[in-house]
């Protein structure tokens, strides 16, 4: 596994807000094409870490490199090489499907022709061609999240950050969503995902669990379960976070 190309490199990353240490000496690597689960309790520091990795916030000390660029020094280079989607912020509800694709494609500087090609490619794949002129708030949540994931991939980023992408989505659509994640990872895009569904933690190649600003555990789901002597990731999580 060590021969795989590192897409995210984090060393001794620290982020402080006043006296409060949100991230304490995080060190980990994520590889090309890996599905990396980034778990932790609410308030454990996940959001802070993701913000740093996306170039939205500078680390207090330490070092993080995403897609080959130092996040502290070249946040804009980082941003153009990553995709991002979350449950809360994904697409514009008052725009049509096509307009959303066009907008996000435009943001990343894709030529119009390519945006149209990609739009039809993704819509065909999702079997959603008929919805291209539908305003987004008329589309069910699960479909919306699938669209949002496609839009996050429109500029072929090296990494996609997914922040609780499947919250509230029905079990069938949730699984279809994960099929999309697998497909993306198999094409070589790294997927960095947070979730509160512990069964989804099992779908990841490796999982890190954060608690109070520190990464307490990082390994494959199977090894974590073995190490803590439990049967499910849920139990692993509870053992660590409690």
């Amino acid at each position, binding site marked *: 596994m060590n021969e795989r190309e590192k897409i995210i490199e984090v060393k001794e990353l620290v982020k402080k807000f006043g006296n409060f240490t949100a991230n304490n000496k995080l060190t980990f690597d994520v590889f090309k094409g890996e599905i990396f689960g980034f778990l932790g309790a609410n308030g454990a520091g996940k959001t802070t870490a993701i913000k740093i990795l996306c170039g939205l916030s500078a680390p207090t000390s330490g070092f993080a490199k995403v897609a080959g660029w130092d996040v502290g020094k070249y946040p804009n280079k980082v941003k153009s090489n990553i995709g991002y989607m979350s*449950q809360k912020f994904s697409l514009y509800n008052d725009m049509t499907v096509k307009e959303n694709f066009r907008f996000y494609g435009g943001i990343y500087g894709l030529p119009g022709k390519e945006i149209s090609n990609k739009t039809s490619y993704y819509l065909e794949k999702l079997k959603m061609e008929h919805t291209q002129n539908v305003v987004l708030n008329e589309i069910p949540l699960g479909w919306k999240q699938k669209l949002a994931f496609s839009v996050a991939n429109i500029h072929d980023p090296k990494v996609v950050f997914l922040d609780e992408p499947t919250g509230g989505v029905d079990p069938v659509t949730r699984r279809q969503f994960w099929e999309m994640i697998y497909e993306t990872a198999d094409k070589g895009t790294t997927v960095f995902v947070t979730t*509160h569904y512990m069964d989804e933690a099992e779908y990841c190649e490796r999982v890190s669990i954060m608690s109070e600003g520190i990464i307490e555990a990082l390994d494959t789901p199977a090894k974590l379960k073995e190490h803590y002597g439990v049967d499910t990731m849920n139990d692993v999580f509870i053992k660590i976070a409690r």
Partner: protein
Amino acid sequence: MSADINITNVSKSYNEVVALKNINLTIDNGELFGLIGPDGAGKTTLFRILTSLVLPTDGEVHIGELDVVKDYKKVRRNTGYMPGRFSLYSDLTVEENLNFYASIFNTSLKENYDLIKDIYIQIEPYKKRRAGDLSGGMKQKLALSCALIHSPQLIILDEPTTGVDAVSRMEFWELLKKMQKRGMTILVSTPYMDEAALCDRVALMQNGKLLAVDKPQNIVNSYKGSLFAVSANNMHSLLSDLEKLDNTKQVFRFGETIHITSNIESDNQYIEEVNKHLVSCGYNNISIKKTNPVIEDCFLALMDIETEDKDKAE
């Protein structure tokens, strides 16, 4: 007010969109009842009808002897409701929020301190902090305290655990169990299927319909067919290869394995067929084990039946 809830033939549509289709449901006094389903299933609409915030298009709801439409004032006085959205004032502190909610029900934090003590001691260290600065789990606990402060007989909690981590969720359910022991009737909705097992009874909900209403164990027991957990060396491609199988009803990922349901009587024969197929596809480390379904398996099976019915109808 007794908190037996009788929901009879309730439907609700917003313009042309049908949110609830002919719901019939009875909830007993003192029950911890779970309403389980994804976003858009109609959980919030049903809860809003119960709290008299929304009028049903059709049908009736009674809580004890009270009609939620006619006697809405009494219903509201005896119900604790925690809306799905974060319904606290983020610019007020923890303490100020609690005092405010206490006072609008003509009570005080002191008067009902016992009632919320178990929850409140967990957030008390932060009582001077603004509600907006709390972490997700803390916010939910504060919101629950606010909903409980007037000692209601019925509490209705709309997705209290959504977006909350597994540990905080577990703690939250422990609190609910304690509340139930005090004799309250508790109605909770959640999109997390694994929380179903923590309720006395659950209703599985999808597209404005109830798919099943029963004790969690009964729902699991009534699962039709045999369920198998399959794993092999390449989990990525395993799913699509399993989908090519004959005699197979459903295939879906489930944690570290893939769950498949068989269409035929003999389990052994089925396992053999699956094994043969996977070997011919070139897999190693193949494991096929019969497994017990959980609520999520039942939900997926029921959703499948639902779509089949719909297809037939069309």
